[in-house]
């Protein structure tokens, strides 16, 4: 079993093979965490840009001519009907009609929540990095000692 070694284990007493396993495990965990961090970052970016879009929309008056994107490269002329309400996707395929102010507030709350989670992940990642450095250092010492023992 390669379950987490308790914190009290002295790394110097662990076999090199196990250390390697531990290092690989930590590496995997770090990769997962950094993938999550990237996903959270991009979600935060999307909420941020949605919030800004609502803010800009709220300043427009109804009847304002505009070009609606049908695809990323095809636009058709349109007029703005009303900017007094926006529809927010709150998840699980539920949508809610809110005022633009509520909409930006929602986006800001989401961004803050994601930032908090990113901070937490960052902390865990720093901690894992620290442990990994220790493990790698001890592993290198052990391997060097082994080599010396073999040569003599």
């Amino acid at each position, binding site marked *: 079993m390669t379950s987490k070694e308790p914190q009290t284990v002295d790394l110097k007493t662990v076999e090199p093979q196990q250390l390697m396993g531990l290092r690989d495990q930590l590496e995997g965990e770090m990769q997962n965490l950094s993938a999550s961090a990237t996903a959270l970052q991009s979600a935060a970016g999307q909420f941020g840009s949605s919030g800004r879009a609502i803010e800009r929309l709220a300043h427009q008056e109804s009847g304002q001519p505009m070009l609606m994107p049908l695809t990323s490269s095809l636009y058709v002329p349109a007029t703005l009907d009303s900017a007094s309400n926006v529809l927010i996707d709150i998840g*699980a395929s539920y949508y809610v009609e809110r005022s633009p102010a509520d909409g930006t507030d929602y986006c800001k709350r989401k961004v803050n929540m994601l930032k908090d989670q990113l901070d937490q992940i960052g902390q865990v990642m720093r901690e894992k990095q620290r442990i990994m450095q220790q493990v790698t250092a001890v592993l290198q010492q052990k391997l060097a000692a082994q080599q010396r023992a073999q040569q003599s």
Partner: protein
Amino acid sequence: MADTKLKALEQSLQAEAEGLKALERDGQKAQQAQQQFIQQQNENQMVLKELEGLQEDSAVYKLIGPVLIKQDLVEARSNVKKRLELISGELSRIDSQLKNVAKEGQRKQQQGMKMQQELQKLQQANRS
């Protein structure tokens, strides 16, 4: 005589090992389902929090296929609550399933080890 016994033991050991593998697969499947339900639980909890914070006259829509269908707010809240109950029911079911798999796996492992020891004893006896 000893040979047939040896063969039988080898066969049952193999069967045991296969059973253990199947059990591990079940465990992995259950774990995946658990992850999925936890994700859904999180999402629905967030939705419920948003719905509870709304004023009674707010318009709520549900996306069904490609269309948005207007929903009664009270109904939407109770639907999400029901979903959450369903999800936590599933989660506790999976939890007990995982516990069972772990217990069964331990038992199988011990039995497999016992069989292996027996097998080794028999093999040694045959040789001498």
